């Protein structure tokens, strides 16, 4: 393409970082004979999907993205610089001003009460407030990005632990009601050992699938009624079947972007049982005939990412990924792609765009991912937990088992497994009960709904009220100022809106403003209801569609504002 390149040259470190990441991903420039032949046009622009890894390489290497660095990345990948800039500025993790390091401090609904104090203790260091970092059980949480490829998660964070840069603790407390299906190996097998995983029953599901054939796996998953655990509750078997029936190249994507406030279940699975995630993807690949897999992990999950990359390498070395997987006569491999701080990229079509090196804005549906997904190919996209569930089901385990991250004013915050149909009260009980009197419980994260203490006997399942969402449960005690919580949720949607559609781009900011006026005694219910209506009815994607859920439920339950109508 006749692109106009940025004229500022990259620094040596930037150049090396990009050359290395591109080489690591097998990108070789198809140069012709200088002055005589050249490969150009579309044939030169085939690896736009390496734009995001290249941006990370710059940011990781030198701490920010300079004109020269971005220009060099764009030139190598034949990406227009304006588009490269449009993509880079989409993500929170990238800086366009020179900086040494940044400490991201979570100030979301669980960590919020601690944030000010923590930040006050970090005087002289560049701090950015961020939405939920996915370690709510160990609030407060911080994430440090330093040049030289250093990324550190810290939980619980104190000024001292942040300054030392040492992760204080990584193990998440777990608990189980009934049989441990999804958490069976968590905490008991070494996540860095493939042998341990196999010793604990790992890869038996794949063997069984190879013995019995794809149809048998599909039938079993369908019979177990496994439904998506990423929030949309879509039947997994239906997706797999649709892609299995499609012709040509296909793709399996594991959605590990987990960014719903209060949610940390996928992180625990990846950190503690990474091979199970790979086995789940491999199973999906075997059933659907996909040869390429992508795992898209959120940019703040440094440890989970490391564990997944190591596990993939170990699986590949053992012949469990590659040209002939487990001698089963099919090819499949997995690439890890890292998000860069954008909740919207968990939405499946945004995720595809993000991997493809475009802005992480959602696409129209239809066409659905099973028809035209990643790179326009039929794609199975599943949540981490869904895939691990598929592995368990293949071994005749209960398909009804579900993970519930529980945090907030609770005695034993952590990750809990229980059969669907469990009541909120039972889960709170399993987590040691509330630390003090409960004012409200938020189910399903920021896109979820509040419950009052009297309503906690309600049970959680796909398709019932309150919506299951990610399964996250956050408990607020009577000392909590719910206006602050609801305001934080509203700001979350404002900040995370991709900005593509009018209802969400402007509606979420108007919602924040209306809540503020409401707090000052204004009569805003009608405005808020109208905003909720247009957000729900006319937004492109689930972010906008659910951006007023929690606010509306807080209003309905009179947790804020009182009844102004």
């Amino acid at each position, binding site marked *: *393409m*006749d*692109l106009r390149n940025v004229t500022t040259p990259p620094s040596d470190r930037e150049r090396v970082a990009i050359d290395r990441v591109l080489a690591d991903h097998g990108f070789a420039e198809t140069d012709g004979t200088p*002055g*005589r*032949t*050249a490969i*150009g*046009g579309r044939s030169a622009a085939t690896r736009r999907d390496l734009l995001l890894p290249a941006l990370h390489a710059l940011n990781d290497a030198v701490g920010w993205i300079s004109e020269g660095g971005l220009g060099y990345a764009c030139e190598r990948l034949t990406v227009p610089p304006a588009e490269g800039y449009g993509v880079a500025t989409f993500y929170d993790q990238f800086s366009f001003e020179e900086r040494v390091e940044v400490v991201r401090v979570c100030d979301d609904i669980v960590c919020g009460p601690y944030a000010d104090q923590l930040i006050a203790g970090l005087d002289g260091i560049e701090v950015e407030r961020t939405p939920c970092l996915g370690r709510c059980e160990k609030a407060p949480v911080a994430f440090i990005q330093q040049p030289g490829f250093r990324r550190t998660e810290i939980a619980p964070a104190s000024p001292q632990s942040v300054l030392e840069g040492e992760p204080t603790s990584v193990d998440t407390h777990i608990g189980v009601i009934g049989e441990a299906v999804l958490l069976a190996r968590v905490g008991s097998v070494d996540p860095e050992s493939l042998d341990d995983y196999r010793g604990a029953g790992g890869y038996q599901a794949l063997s069984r699938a190879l013995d019995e054939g794809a149809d048998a796996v599909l039938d079993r998953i369908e019979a177990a009624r496994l439904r998506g655990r990423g929030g949309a509750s879509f039947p997994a078997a239906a997706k797999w079947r649709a892609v299995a029936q499609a012709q040509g190249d296909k793709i399996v994507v594991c959605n590990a972007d987990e960014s719903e406030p209060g949610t940390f279940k996928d992180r625990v699975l990846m950190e503690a049982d990474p091979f199970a995630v790979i086995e789940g993807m491999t199973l999906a690949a075997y059933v659907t005939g996909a040869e390429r897999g992508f795992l898209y992990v959120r940019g703040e999950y440094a440890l989970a990412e490391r564990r997944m990359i190591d596990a993939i390498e170990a699986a590949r070395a053992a012949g469990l990924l590659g040209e002939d997987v487990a001698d089963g006569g099919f090819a499949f491999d997995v690439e890890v792609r890292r998000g860069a701080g954008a909740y919207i990229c968990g939405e499946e079509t945004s995720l595809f765009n993000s991997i493809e090196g475009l802005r992480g804005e959602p696409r129209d549906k239809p066409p659905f991912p099973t028809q035209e997904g990643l790179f326009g190919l039929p794609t199975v996209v599943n949540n981490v937990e869904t895939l691990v569930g598929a592995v368990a089901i293949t071994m005749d385990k209960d398909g009804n088992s579900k993970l519930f991250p529980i945090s907030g004013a609770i005695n034993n915050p952590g990750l809990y497994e229980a059969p669907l149909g469990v009541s909120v009260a039972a889960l709170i009980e399993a987590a040691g009960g509330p630390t003090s009197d409960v004012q409200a419980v938020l189910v399903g994260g920021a896109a979820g709904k509040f419950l009052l203490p009297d309503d906690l006997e309600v049970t959680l399942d796909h398709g019932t009220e309150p919506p299951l969402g990610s399964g996250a449960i956050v408990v607020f005690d009577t000392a909590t100022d719910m206006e602050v919580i609801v305001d934080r949720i509203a700001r979350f949607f404002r900040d995370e809106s991709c900005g593509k559609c009018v209802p969400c781009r402007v509606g979420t900011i108007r919602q924040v403003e209306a809540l503020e006026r409401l707090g000052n005694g204004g009569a805003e219910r009608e405005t808020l209801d109208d905003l909720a209506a247009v957000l729900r009815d006319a937004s492109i994607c689930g972010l906008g569609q659910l951006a007023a859920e929690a606010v509306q439920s807080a209003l309905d339950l009179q947790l804020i504002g009182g009844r102004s109508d």
Partner: protein
Amino acid sequence: MFGAGGGTSSYEEIETTDLIVLWGSNAREAHPIFFHHLLKGIDNGATMYAIDPRRTSSTAWADHWLGIDVGSDIALANTIAREIIAQGLHNEAFIAHATTGFDEYRASVEPWTLQEGERVTGVPASAIQDLAHAYAKAETAQLLWTLGITEHYTAADNVFALINLALLTGHVGRYGSGLVPLRGQNNVQGGGDMGALPNKLPGGQDVADDVGRARFEATWGVELRAEPGWHLAQMFDAIEGGDLRTLYIIGENPAQSEADGAKARHALESLDCLVVQDIVMTATTELADVVFPAAVGWAESEGTVTSSERRVQRVRMAVAPPGEARDDIDILVAMANRLGHDWPATTAEEVWDELRSLSSWHAGMSYERLEALGGLQWPCPDESHPGSKFLHARLWEEPSGGPAAPFTVVEWRPPIDELTDEYPIRLTTGRHLDSFNTGVQSGRSRAPRRKGATIDISPEDAEHLDLSDGDLARVTSRRGSVVAPVAVETGLRDGLAFMTLHYPDEVDVNVLTLDKWDPKSGTAEFKATAVRIELEG
């Protein structure tokens, strides 16, 4: 092309074709909106090859660029042909059905092995082979060219060499496959179609054709010569030889646009009488004895123009001409009357209707239809005809309708202006996106990125010659020399330099070029000058 001087295809065809071969054309800059259609073709999955000495913004869009030596186009075409024939990829059925002269053609290209092609063109043999196979195997293919093919003293042969390739593979006469010369000016096509060629009457009719000529004689009430007139280069020779003493120029700026500009200006100055009709004062009007201020064709008068896809469209008066400027037709009628004729005031539509009565290409194109349909593509023989998207369908008809299409044996001849130690660099010329020809029209409008006159050289030459961006360099050819600021361009290779013709008032590039012209078409060797470049002062 086999009896019709126009591109065979429509723009829309390139949007769905399988293969695009862009040869000697920087259409991205010189024909930007045509390039939009080409880009649609690429978006729809077409593969593109581009042949150009320079790595231009057009070639950047090609999947494969072939950086040919200036003036070796015939060598490349013949090599492609030989490879296609050698591999048995030629379309034997089509050749037998619709063409003549294949055996002589085959014999003539036989020496052009891939190795020989590489030696003469500089393009690696594998790349030539690749293009040959792709062109021969494509279901549909569009072959397009511009001045890179025609601004040579071998212009006509260059074009024949390309036509041969289409005949060889059957890439002509079908929807999606064709040959398209992109026209440099808004009515080059129309001017030729209207008979502004030395050997043609309107509608592509040959002056030597007695029957056709008789119809014009009857309508016009005058006797017409059966011999072709002079083309531009012959006129200049005639001025020099004293045979042409009076010149009436309408809307041209030869004082700046002709090769070997010093010689051209000298010729114009030597005339007994020079009349120039133009919309603004130019270097040529400066030399004139009489200047007729004319209305701007596209905005101050009525009429038609014809585009590169043979589409005839209406131009209309949007503003009234300033001062004493008058419509071209008015001026011509007034001239005729002053010369003793009795021509009535005539509208553009009346002139057009007369043309329609004489040209079957245009017969069906009433003003009313042109307006209603957004233009029509010739041939359009009657008022119920929808116009023709592509030409020469007859070549595929059973039995073949009309005369067969002949292969033309063409020999490669190297550029006349030889490279020597004294003049070691090949200077070629071309256009920039935001300027047009000698800048008479475009130069008056803003263009934030207009580069101005520069001598563009490769990074390698910049190093040898110890020149860098912005240095003033003297460029000397066997005919003259100019001074221009240096621009180092990565799209150029060692030994290849580039200038545009847009800024004759700053740097008169045609002082350097050679006025050796093609005897068949009258175009001069603008594209291949041997020069020496050195730091000025």
